[in-house]
């Protein structure tokens, strides 16, 4: 049906352009994901995945439990799947698409009986052939299999019979498996076991240099590195590091690994070291730093600020953990605690937080007084103030009484009812105050002091100047 006709029939019809390339890529990813079930999987365009589970089902506890787990996983990721297991790819294909149940298991050798009631289009033949077969009264595969082969071959060609034989198992049909992405593994074995940090550092440099050569050839950079120390006693020690952006700089990676050597227990000695790069990303080839201009600390000369800082950031992240290093981004909000937000350190500086924001990004500066330290959660205080809008005369915080000498305010901040419905009437009145010693505090009162619906008139300490 043409789109125009469909839209004429249903005016509010939602249309989305088909993206066959994206669909195919997603199907390839799904096929690669299915590698966990079997080493042989393939995408069956446009809507299926082959999995050759020969000899693999016992690892999952049998065919039934494997299918249960598989359909559970797929449903968990939002995919509705029909699954069939049979002796031949053709039979599994037919039963998955035209079988009665969404999960079908055909016992070995029983595919002829299982296929017999299915319509002929289940055999992966064209619509024209299906219509011709129908005209001859051959509606099901069982009827087709019972017909004389000679006249069928003369009328429809060999393709139809090949499909039939593939489904019933008289002709073998290989599937073209997807290849798992090649993972870079570099390994060095030693004649004598190593146990000193210096020796490890030397080997790390060799391993990283070799890995980086491969990365350079493939135009990729490492995001994660696993260094496995194989000990003489048969056990292994693992060092894992991550980088904030794809890297193939030998010095940088080697230094990150060197810093973790101290966490390795060499025990009786390490007889081999293996460097695995499980996660790589595309990294455009860069102009190499001029050796003459190399600085003493090994960093590339010049360069942008971000590129240089990434070395430092990677080292901090690997030492302290991924969420500890961040930047601040200003958010357009009058509520102080919402006006800044931590963002990952390599996030784009101006990523749109709201989908539509015609205004320029929020500025950091605020016209009102703003403290330099803001308490995570405001602390309740007892304050003495004349209603509705006189500055507090004194307040007690943590059992210490502060007499207020000077004050600036009130600065009224209203709730953001357009985000949160329960803040429709909420009001905070902020005061910057100075006590008798000159210490400056940022206080607020909930409510405007007139309408009890705006807040409960409780006072809080929110920051320090």
């Amino acid at each position: 049906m043409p789109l125009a006709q469909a839209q004429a029939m249903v005016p509010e019809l939602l249309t989305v352009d088909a993206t066959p390339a994206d669909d195919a890529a997603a199907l390839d990813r799904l096929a690669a994901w299915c590698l966990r079930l079997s080493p042989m999987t393939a995408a069956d365009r446009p809507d299926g995945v082959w999995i050759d589970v020969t000899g693999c089902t016992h690892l999952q506890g049998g065919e039934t439990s494997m299918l249960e787990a598989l359909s559970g996983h797929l449903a968990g990721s939002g995919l509705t799947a029909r699954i069939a297991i049979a002796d031949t790819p053709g039979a599994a294909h037919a039963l998955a698409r035209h079988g009665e149940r969404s999960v079908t298991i055909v016992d070995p050798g029983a595919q002829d009986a299982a296929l017999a009631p299915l319509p002929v289009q289940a055999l992966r033949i064209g619509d024209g052939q299906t219509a011709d077969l129908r005209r001859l009264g051959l509606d099901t595969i069982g009827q087709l299999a019972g017909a004389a082969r000679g006249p069928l071959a003369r009328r429809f060609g060999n393709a139809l019979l090949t499909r039939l034989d593939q489904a019933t198992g008289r002709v073998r049909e290989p599937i073209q498996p997807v290849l798992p992405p090649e993972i870079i593994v570099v390994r060095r074995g030693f004649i004598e076991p190593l146990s000193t940090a210096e020796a490890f550092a030397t080997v790390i440099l060799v391993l990283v240099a070799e890995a980086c050569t491969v990365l350079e050839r493939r135009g990729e950079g490492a995001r994660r590195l696993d260094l496995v120390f194989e000990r003489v006693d048969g056990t292994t020690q693992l060092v894992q590091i991550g980088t904030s952006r794809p890297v193939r700089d030998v010095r940088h990676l080697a230094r990150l690994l060197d810093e973790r050597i101290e966490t390795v227990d060499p025990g009786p000695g390490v007889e081999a070291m293996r460097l695995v790069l499980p996660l790589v990303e595309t990294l455009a080839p860069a102009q190499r730093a001029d050796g003459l201009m190399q600085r003493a600390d090994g960093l590339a000369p010049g360069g942008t600020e971000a590129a240089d800082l990434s070395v430092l950031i990677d080292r901090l992240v690997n030492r302290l953990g991924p969420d500890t290093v961040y930047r601040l981004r200003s958010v357009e909000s009058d509520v102080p605690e919402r006006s800044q937000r931590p963002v990952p350190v390599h996030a784009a500086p101006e990523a749109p937080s709201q989908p539509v924001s015609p205004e320029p990004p929020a500025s950091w500066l605020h016209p009102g007084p703003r403290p330099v330290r803001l308490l995570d959660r405001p602390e309740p205080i007892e304050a003495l103030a004349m209603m509705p809008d006189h500055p507090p005369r004194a307040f007690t915080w943590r059992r210490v009484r502060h007499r207020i000498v000077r004050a600036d305010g009130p600065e009224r901040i209203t709730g953001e009812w357009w985000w949160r419905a329960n803040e429709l009437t909420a009001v905070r009145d902020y005061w910057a105050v100075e006590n008798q010693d000159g210490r400056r505090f940022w206080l607020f009162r909930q409510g405007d002091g007139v309408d009890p619906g705006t807040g409960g008139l409780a006072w809080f300490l929110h920051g320090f100047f």
Partner: protein
Amino acid sequence: MPAIDLSALRAQVAALARGTRRSAAAAALPFGIPAIDRHLPGGGLALGAVHEVAGGGPEVEHGAAAALFAAGLLARRPGPVLWIHGRRDLFSAGLAGAGLDPGRLVLVRTRRGALQAMEEGLRHPDLAGVVCDCEGRLDLVASRRLQLAAEASDVLGLVLRQSRRFADPALVAPSAATSRWRITSLPSPPPLAHAADVPGLGRARWSLALLRCRGAEPATWTVEAPDAQGRLALAAVLADRSLAPAALRVLAG
């Protein structure tokens, strides 16, 4: 008798007195206040060195004035700033008010690894400075490590000492930092000097005490808190005192 270049000799002696590997011509970040800059060796706060800053009295707990002081100093240096803190209580609008663009900040949130992270940052020559909110001890070994890292890279290191206790002995323990400052709030004058009863807040006033410094005597100045460009100003102490009696007598006579 051969002619002796006195200035070279002085520089050599000064370097010996400081006990560092740094050259005499090391850079410094001037405060822009002649009285303070003249007092400090090198004409300002030495770069490539670690300085301790603490709040005075009860302010030592949050160190808000110390943070503002650090923000004002770093506002006048180009480049990214590494700020290590444990409490997640920095407020960007307040830092921006002292001239430090919060977009320049790279924040590290850690308590135990704070000094390690600071040392890592001080080794990085592209930073404008490293600030560390340090709650707890800063012993000689740790501070010496920081100082050496800073000397190698010429990065300004500021350790903001914090403590939950008044008069914490850990704050006065010796360290290898180049200088130690204490900032105490003072009552500020009325916002309008000629109309004392107009309500409001003017610039905050601090007592800026140099407690210890290599190559300089301890001293105390009364300053005004950083302006929007991060500059301190010497407070006009005399401005809000009453007029001298002598002048009044002349008028009366």
